[in-house]
């Protein structure tokens, strides 16, 4: 049984990057300002070979955050028992510093859709998400962090605001939260609300990690901006500004740079990490954001 009284381990309040194999040699040679790495759990569930060997090497050098992208915590059906067992196996041998997953669903009726699909914020969803998080935390015997999604649309049936929903999940399950600042910016633009109001409502004391990434710009049927979370572009200035605002309220946090498609060379990714480092440095030197 997961013991909520146990003090969870913490990532350093430094920049981290989402690990891509093409950056392995650069990271081993000189990680620069990068203080920790995040991996997608599902990419390291093979029996062996290079992915596992590299992960073993990296885990000797860096704190590792395991980020699941396929558990379907919000799924209407039961969690996939085989997948839970694979997550437990990975967490057991790797002993990562933290584990996180998404407020989303991706599997229905045996089919995995390889995307983070949205949930209505209702009492029924709340109960289901809490049940699934309890099951996961009991299985891996540690706390997880739950990440806020990018939203492109709203469910008419929703009765909870997203920050209230996440706070209630954390309260009921003892899980931590992962705040994706780019997702807040994307959702706020798409659903026409103030991202700073969202941050003001978000339980920042429960946040153990911040995500930053790039997005694409599109339009809806009415010519209104429709931002799409792509993790395939540089982080835009308004998102950096929202990070500064968030940090001014939350204090320093571990900050991850996510870049998953059209992955750039190491120097460009490292420049993004340097910018996150500067945002953290502003806090300690007291320079206003």
């Amino acid at each position, binding site marked *: 049984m997961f013991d909520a009284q146990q003090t969870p381990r913490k990532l350093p309040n430094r920049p981290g990057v989402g690990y891509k194999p093409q950056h392995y040699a650069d990271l081993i040679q000189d990680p620069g300002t990068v203080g920790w790495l995040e991996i997608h759990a599902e990419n390291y569930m093979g029996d062996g070979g290079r992915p596992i060997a590299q992960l073993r090497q990296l885990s000797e050098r860096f704190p590792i955050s395991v980020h699941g992208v396929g558990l379907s915590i919000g799924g209407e059906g039961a969690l996939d028992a085989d*997948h839970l067992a694979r997550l437990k196996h990975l967490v057991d041998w790797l002993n990562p510093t933290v584990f996180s997953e998404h407020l989303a669903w991706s599997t229905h009726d045996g089919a995995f859709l390889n995307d983070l699909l949205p949930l209505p914020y209702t009492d029924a969803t709340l109960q289901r998400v809490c049940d699934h998080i309890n099951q996961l935390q009991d299985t891996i015997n540690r706390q997880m962090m739950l990440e806020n999604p990018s939203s492109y*649309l709203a*469910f008419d049936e929703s009765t909870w605001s997203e920050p209230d929903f996440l706070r209630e999940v954390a309260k009921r399950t003892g899980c931590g939260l992962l705040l994706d600042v780019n997702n807040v910016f994307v959702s706020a633009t798409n*659903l026409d609300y103030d991202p700073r109001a969202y941050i003001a409502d978000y339980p920042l004391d429960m946040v153990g990690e911040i995500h930053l990434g790039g997005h694409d710009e599109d339009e809806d049927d009415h010519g209104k901006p429709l931002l799409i979370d792509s993790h395939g572009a540089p982080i835009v200035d308004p998102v950096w500004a929202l990070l500064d605002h968030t940090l001014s309220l939350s204090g320093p946090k571990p900050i991850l740079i996510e870049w998953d498609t059209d992955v750039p060379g190491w120097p460009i990714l490292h420049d993004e990490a340097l910018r996150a480092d500067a945002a953290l440095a502003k806090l300690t030197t007291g320079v206003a954001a």
Partner: protein
Amino acid sequence: MNVSQNEFRGAIFDGGRARPEGLSDAKGQPAGRRFDVYRNNVAVSLTEALATGFPTIAKLIGSENFNAIAGVFLRQSPPSSPMMMHYGEDFPDFLAGFEPLAHLGYLADVARLEMAMRRSYHAADAEAVNPEALAAHPPERLTELVMTFAPSVKLLRSPWPIHAIWAFNMQDGPKPEAGGQDVIILRPEYDPVPHALAPGAYEFITALTAGGTLGAAAAVATDEVAEFDLSATLGLLLTGNALISIDLPS
């Protein structure tokens, strides 16, 4: 209006189906093409996963054809688990039965080769025997030896020149010539390498993996082709780190 995940999934995979009601923009207007972000994400991410897993197939038929075929396949056979490294296990069979590609009979077996390379890449690590391990046994008892293969070793047989087709497209190899090929995939360290096998070697390796002795396996191979080259085949297996044990049965 509540939206079930069943309805959501159905509308994602069927672009001709109406988008679910009960999904809106900030003003309460129907979500419209906002829903299509999910349709697009799912189709594009699964198509990219297939293109990454079957690069030779994509090259053989061109990326436009590949994407169109992937679009049919992913709706018929979405991933059955979040282990995307396994996605496409049934793609070769799909290609074999896909009528518009019936004139390219070799495609399914080339896809089987690519799937086998992916399985080899993710297979469990195992320490290979030293290439001198064979010589450590008394020469008069060599025929009695039994061998265990590394989990990364994969064996394929095709009526098509699948190794030559792969090499021509991926390694600047010479133009393939007609005729079937047997292929073994070896993973000396972390990168799987396919090798075309000489006549008899497929039968030899099959007999060994079934637990047969070296003598029995060599006899099966020589029955198949008199000129079976035992030492070249053993050399390939030993230098390719294919064997993890060579023992006299106790």
